[in-house]
């Protein structure tokens, strides 16, 4: 077994009396393309936000390549190489598309190369014709791509994508799946999704969250036939 690129130990987050994350032990091997699924409120987004420093954990630890990052600032985690696309498009709405990508490229590659890299990314996302439009005017799906593009431009080691295909047409979803597989060639990827067709397209291994804990972790096909997972999704209770 190789050393994990990301690991959490007894990770816990309490909001008042609610345990949003209740002792999660999570391991991610380098190069994986992992999907996180689970019903609403299972703690998937909270888990992502803790890994990227947006929410401090109540207890437990998060290790990135063996280094404890559970108390690190957002920008420090970003520099280490963990990039995230948040659930709601998290971009610079009032600023032109090209400028959005420029700001992302500039940090990792310097001002001299940033322009070229931003242009190349617009080509790759097929959004070049919109270069000077404020991102706030673009469609939901386009903004998701812009955000994914910004994350990739940082050359991260781990890419966390929170619902990357939400609000997309079938065609757009397929393109997103292709993009994610491409990203996975150079980075470890974790995707939170609800769309099972989409997960079937991309996932090798699936982790199921339920009420702040990991309920199951296996290949997509096995997870789909797991009775506990079905119960959780369909709201059935054991033995009923």
């Amino acid at each position: 077994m190789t050393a994990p690129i990301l690991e959490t130990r007894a990770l816990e987050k309490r909001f008042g009396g609610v345990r949003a994350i209740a002792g999660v032990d999570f391991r991610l091997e380098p190069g994986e393309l992992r999907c996180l699924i689970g019903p609403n409120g299972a703690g998937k987004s909270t888990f992502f936000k803790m890994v990227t420093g947006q929410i401090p954990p109540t207890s437990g630890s998060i290790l990135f390549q063996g280094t404890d990052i559970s108390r690190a600032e957002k920008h420090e985690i970003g520099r280490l190489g963990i990039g995230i696309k948040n659930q709601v498009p998290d971009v610079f709405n009032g600023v032109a598309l090209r400028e959005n990508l420029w700001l992302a490229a500039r940090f990792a590659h310097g001002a001299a190369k940033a322009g070229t890299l931003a242009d190349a990314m617009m080509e790759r996302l097929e959004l070049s014709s919109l270069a000077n439009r404020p991102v706030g005017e673009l469609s939901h799906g386009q903004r998701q791509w812009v955000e994914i593009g910004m994350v990739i431009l940082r050359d991260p080691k781990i890419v966390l994508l929170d619902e990357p295909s939400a609000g997309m047409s079938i065609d757009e979803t397929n393109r997103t799946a292709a993009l994610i597989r491409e990203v996975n060639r150079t980075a470890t990827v974790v995707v939170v999704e609800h769309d099972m067709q989409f997960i079937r397209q991309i996932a090798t291994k699936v982790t199921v969250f339920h009420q702040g804990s990991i309920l199951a972790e296996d290949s997509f096909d096995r997870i789909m036939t797991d009775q506990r997972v079905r119960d959780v999704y369909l709201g059935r209770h054991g033995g009923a």
Partner: protein
Amino acid sequence: MAGERPAWWWWASIGTALVVLMAAPSYLDIADQLDISIIFILALLALSMGFLWGQGGMLSFGQTAFFGLGGYSYAVLALNTGETTSAFFIAIALSMAFALAVGYFMIYGRISDIYLSVITLVVTLILEKGIRATSGDQYVIGSVRLNGQNGIPTVPSLQLPWNPGTELFIDGVFYLSAALLVLVYVGLRLLLASSFGRVLVGIRENERRVELLGYDARRYKLAAFVLAGGIAGLAGVLYGVWGNFVSPAMFHLNQAAQVVIWVIVGGKSWLIGPVAGTAVVQYLSNWLGTQGVGQVSLWLGVVLMIFVLVFREGLLPTAALAIAWVRRRLGRREA
């Protein structure tokens, strides 16, 4: 707008403005020169506030804290040493140091935007009350009495650095304040086209995203806050030089609120907005004062309400929107 280098017409306008400003004193009498100089000086103060708010997303309600501090520092230093050039620069440096201290606690303490407004306002009010309480004989710095609410009269005029025997007269203050206003405006505009400025605008748009990309947003915000403190301090020094007088009114709530009004009226999304806003409001209040309308402040309040309710973007951006709209209409008719 952000990130783009200024176009040729922008540089041409700056050049024209400089020529007009440098020629103006020959055609203006002394009273007009005084009236216009103070608009330049207050426009610098508005520019410091508008830059922070419009570009950095930080609504500092108390830029007057650094304005007053700059003015008082210059007065005390120049009166003690009899030398004005170093007093000029040290006063600005002190304003920046104070901005660094205040800004550090606010920005590294990660207080929210609304509290930044409240704290800056409270800081300027504390300074005002503090200075007002110094009327006793015991409040002396070096050989200078602070004089409480009477302020410090006899603030020295600026001497020429290469010839301390010569003092700047009214036209000299006009040239200096006009040149510094243009210089600061051009400097800020170029700053916005630099990497620093582009990141700053990114922070205004979405601070979390900037940080997730790996930038330490706090450093950028603090740098912008200190820079704006320095510009407000510069305005304060010039204010002291302009009237040979500094007083606690420089820190007062009225003054602090006026700065916000200038910026709102002119529009904060462009750097030229606060400058235009200062000119328009100051001219308007001078004019209203001669029209016998009674309470000038009341009328200014009405003007502000109209701007906040109707022209939310402020004067200049609204005008630009109107022009763009007319152009589109004309274009459609031709097509």
